[in-house]
């Protein structure tokens, strides 16, 4: 018997993975940059 597949389930899962990974990577890049630049500025002030 052939199982019924709902195409939208796969589309939604793909968009959740793609958008989630892109947002997480962008946020991580920005936060690590801010942290590193703050660390450099603190080192200069010391």
């Amino acid at each position, binding site marked *: 018997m052939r199982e019924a597949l709902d195409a939208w389930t*796969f589309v939604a*899962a*793909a*968009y959740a993975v*793609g958008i989630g990974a*892109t947002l997480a990577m962008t946020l991580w890049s*920005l936060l690590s940059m801010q*942290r590193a630049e703050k660390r*450099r500025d603190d080192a*200069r002030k010391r």
Partner: protein
Amino acid sequence: MHGFANPARFLRIARWLMPLCMGAGFVVAFGALGWGLFFGPAERLQGETVRIVYLHVPAAWLGMAGWMGIAAASFMELVWRHPLAGIAARACAVPGAVFTAVCLITGSLWGRPAWGTWWVWDGRLTSMLVLLFLYFGWMALSQASEASDGGRNRAPAIFGLVGAVNIPIIHYSVIWWNSQHQAPSITVGKSAMAGAFLWPLLLAMLGFTLLFAGCVLARMRAILANQQAEARLRRKALGAAY
């Protein structure tokens, strides 16, 4: 290219270019995804699953572009000793690996309804998986090199150049070997896709490329700032010792 060898000049440019790339990237990429998801038509044979193309193809392109960035930066590092080349290569690695993983996962989610299977060991899928493992290996080697001698080791640059052999293999795999994966739909100056699918796809590729560039610039700024902080702290420690 040598004009950007000065980190201060690079930082001056990156400070305005990074937010511009990220902002424009978000607007264009998510606009294109919205267009494809809500307003684009379903495909005659694949139905609604064709909408995965707007994520899958940009992710595949950027997974390969990330490694091409590593290879180009490695070449500059080995030949011209460009001071920012090693930093650029390290900055490309994580975004490239993330997009390669997104390509593999979205491809698998597309393969299940389209082919009836999550995975097949054919040339295109296997060479893309090899690319992900190459990223993992390159990141481990780069970290080990950074920890052992502050990144002066040339091994990651050589690995970056040798690993570039996989890029044409990925591209031509669907031509060289029998493959479950379809042949290229878009080539230079020619497209087998209808405009209703092609335009949102091209926009998504542009948007995600801008986001990728923004992330690489942010990573470069982070690596540079960490190196500058380390250097300053080391100088202070040496000054205190004498």
